[in-house]
Structures are given as C-alpha cells and as structure tokens.
C-alpha cells in the first residue's frame, strides 16, 4: 500500500489572478486506496518559499493546552478511490494570505498580519490514505477519539516537490507502474 507524490504545479487563473496548487499522486501499490482529496490547513514558509498542504483528516488533538475546543466536529473528508497504478490530481486554492490562529490573550481579534503567500518554490505535501474508507465512527467520546478510530490502518505520504507553472493533465488516467 504505497502512494507516491510525483509532481506539483501552480496554476494561475488569467482572468482572476487566483492561484491553485495541484499535486499528482500515483498508487504504486497493488491494492486500491482511499485517498483524501479535501485540503486541511495550509501554511507558508516565507523564507524558503515553501507552501505546506495536507490532504488529510483533521487532528483535533493538536490544539494548544490553553485552548479548550468546545465545538469542532469535522465533516467526513472527501475521498477518491485510486486503483493500482492510477494517478490522481489533487488541487487546492492558494489564498494570497494565510491566516492562522495565534493566541493573543485577553479580549482581542484574531486578525494579526497573516502570512502573504508570495512565490511558491516548493510544496511540502502530505496525503493521507488507507485501504478502506475514512469513516468517522458515530458515538465516540470526542472528535479526537472519532478520528483516532477513523485513522486505524491509515498511512500518510509526504514529499517536498518543486513546483512548475505547467498545468497538470486534468485526466492523467491509469498509467503503467
């Protein structure tokens, strides 16, 4: 059960100027994989021009200790079944500014400056997958436990990819592995 992350591309919409990032993944194993196709949090390293993106289920346990999350009930992430040898293009819209929660303390807004996404030189991609569907279990004691159970048997592929501006083939189809 192996998922390979092959290439990354940044596509710019000529009309709106909006950018999207696409990453081509390939199932190099010999069994079908359920691949998460919905993006979780983005982050951008200004010094190196690296955009990090995870097509992965949420991890409610990441919250810092001073944050007591009362309501965060993530939806079942969108998934695609990828046959052995088949490729898939994962895409995510790239905002001009990435805003991430930064504890400010006391009565305050969440604005902050945000991180401006300038040139994207590389992408640090994570893609979560497993042989069976990611299906959160109803009735678990907490979202953290729900997702711990949903992740049983899952793996994550990680890769740092150089990105080009060449758009990917929208229908790469199955290829020989």
């Amino acid at each position, binding site marked *: 059960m192996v998922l390979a992350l092959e290439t990354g591309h940044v596509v710019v919409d000529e009309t709106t100027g909006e950018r999207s990032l696409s990453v081509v993944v390939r199932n190099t194993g010999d069994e079908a994989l359920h691949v998460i196709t919905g993006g979780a949090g983005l982050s951008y390293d200004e010094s190196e021009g690296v955009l990090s993106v995870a097509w992965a289920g949420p991890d409610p346990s990441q919250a810092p200790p001073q*944050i007591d999350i009362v309501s965060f009930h993530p939806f079942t992430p969108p998934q695609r079944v990828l046959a052995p040898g088949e490729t898939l293009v994962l895409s995510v819209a790239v*905002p001009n500014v990435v*805003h991430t929660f930064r504890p400010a303390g*006391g009565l*305050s807004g969440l604005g902050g400056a945000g991180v401006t996404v300038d040139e994207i030189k590389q992408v640090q991609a994570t893609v979560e997958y497993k042989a069976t569907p990611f299906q959160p279990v*109803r009735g678990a004691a907490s979202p953290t436990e729900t997702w711990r159970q949903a992740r049983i048997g899952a793996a994550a592929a990680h890769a740092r990819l150089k990105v080009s501006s060449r758009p990917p083939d929208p229908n790469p189809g199955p290829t020989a592995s």
Partner: protein
Amino acid sequence: MVLYVDMSIGSPDLVFADLYSLTGQDGLGENNVLGHPDLSMITYGTPSTSSPVAARIKQLVDTAADIVISAVPSSYVLPNGAAISTAAGATFRDNTPPPPFVIRVIYDYEMCSGSGYWVAGETKPKIDMPRAIILYHELSHAWHLASGTIAATPAAEEIAAELDENIARTHFGEDTRLTTSHDGGCGSPTTKTPDWNLDCFIVAATMDQQEAKDQVDALRNFRDSVLRSTPVGLQFFERLYAEYYSYSPGLARHVVQDPALRAALREHLVLPLLDVCSWAARLVEQGPGPGPGLGTSEATLNRLLRENAFPAVPAPRRSPAELIQELVVTGLLDRDVAGRPYTSWALLQPVAFHAWLSDALSRRGYPVDRALVAEVDGRVQSWWARRPADMDAAQPGESLHTWAAAAWSFRRLLDEAGRA
C-alpha cells in the same frame, strides 16, 4: 459580558448581516470598544417578536461572558491545524493569558470558497447549511459554555447544538437537520444564495418588518417563478447577487443604525425600485405582445398603469446617482458601485426610468397616449440594449421579447399546475 464582532479579520459586515438575519432586523446596534479598536460590541434591545432565535441572541448579548465572533476565510487555520472549511465553524474557550478569557466563535464567511455547505437532513440526505445557521449553531455552543449548560461529552454537546439549530431552522422554514448524524461537507445541495434571507437585504433594512416581508416575498416570488425561469434569468441573478453582496451587507449595517440614511435609501432607491418591479411583474404576467420590444398596446399599458396605480410613490427629490455619490463621499459605498454593470443596469437605471415615467405621467396625465407608449417602449428597448455585455452568455442573442415570452410561458405552466 458582551457579544463582540472581530473587526480585524474576514468580513465583520457579514457577521452583522447574519445577526441581522437571525434577529429579524429589530433593535441591533453596535458600539466601539474602548481600548480595542479591533472589536465592535453588539447591542440588542428587547426583541419585539416572540422568535426563539431573537431571544437566544438577546441572551447572548446579556450573558456574563465575553464572546468574540470572527468571520474568517475558508483557508483560515484553526488552533488544531485544520482549515475552517473542514467543519464550517468552531467554538472554543481561549484561556490564553492575560484574562479576561474569551469564548471564540469562528465561522467560514466564504462558505467553502463559494461552494456552500451541506449537512444531513431529517427528510432529505443533504440539506443546505446557510451561513447564518452556521453562526447560530456555533452561538448555541457559546451559549451553553457561557451559561454553564454545556453537555457532558462533545458528542452530546453537538447534538444539543443541532437541536438548537433545528429550532432556528423550523422558525425560518428551513429543512431540519438529522441530529444523529454529523455528516456534511462542501457543496450546497440547493441554488440558494449563501446570504439566505439577505437576498433583499437593503429592502428589508429600510422598511418595517411586515411591510418588508410583504414586499420581499412579492419580489422573491417574481424573481423565482418568472425571472429565474430562463437560462439568462438564472445567470443574470447570479451575477447581480455577486455584485450586490459585495457592498450590501456593509451598507445595510449602517442603514439599520441610521434612521436618516434609512429614510433616504427608502425614498430614493427602494420604493421606486419596488414600484417599477411591481409594474414590470404585471407587464410580464400579461404575456408577450405582438411588438418587437415590450410589444404592449396602448390599452394594455394604460390598464397596467392604472391598475397598479403607478406611480405608487412619487419621484424622489434626488436622482439615484446623486444619492450614490453622497454615499461614496461619506465612505459608505465604494466609488465604483454605480459603475458595476449589473447594479447599474438592474437597480439604478430602472429607478431612473421610474423617475422619468412618474414625471411624464404627472405632466401628461391619463389616458396614456400613443406617443408615450412608444416612448416607454423605446426606453425599455434602449435599456435592454445596454444590458451587461456578458449577460447573453447563457443564451446568446436572447431578446427582451423572448425572455419575457419564456418567463411568461413558465409562469403559465406553474399556474396551470397549481390549478390542476
């Protein structure tokens, strides 16, 4: 002990718009917060309605807790590393020192980058999750937290919030949610706008509740059963709303709190526009005439104007352009609003037409003569010719006559279906 709106991120205007939508426009206000320029404090007088939703908002405003609402973009990364679009909304207690600790309500004002959200329904597999309902759901968690009534487990708390949400859904006539499931995701199952009850926002903001309900319902009926029944009509409203939503929540936010502005907009824009829309609706319901433009006859036009008592409101003292200019100067509207193609064509030019026709009728009186009929027809055709350049993309070359004819045919089918 206050409900605050975060002014430092996303769209504070839309938070206000959603609160306005939930409360039914009655008694909302806001104040600056000394020492906190990034926050605005929501005020809310005693609701004049028995709405359980309005009552809940009132409880939140009066509660002994600090609650900060932030409307964030879809890509906003929550404290747990997930994008807000993975859940649509989140509520947490922020214990980061120094005190006071705050309850934070965060929701996705961009509605999953414009695609909307669905959740599992009681009677349908997928139902719409309007933006204001997302906020209400999260405010339910905030209320449970603030009032010490939070459920023992996250799962039970979620069900409690969904039950609260269903009270709001029932109140607003929305499909109710299946509380034994938390399935959902991106992609609205309907063609509803994310602004839900705010599609006629400025109309509602400038009129009293019953008056607004009647007028807004009539407009929605005309829009949904007639104008949106053709490809051009459907696309037209999508583009008009895209423009309208970019400025209307901000403007309405001021309108609600400024009686003079409310009166000015009502006199110069809203009432003339409703008047001309009402007249146009009756014209369309007559069915297409034989001519190339409106195709209406002298007798028909006379009858329509008289039956409709047109003009129902006098021509305003100032032109819409003058009012828009005043709003631009005072910073309530962007300079380019009047130049936006759909706003100009569909909202401002009809108001100008209303002023012209009102004036002509007051000078020439009834019955309308052949020359005036020809002039009305010519102005309407000229208006149609000035439509936005991209409006025909859905059905190239569609004329006013064919749009009206198609809309009329559809309406007739609906009427026949209703009789059957």
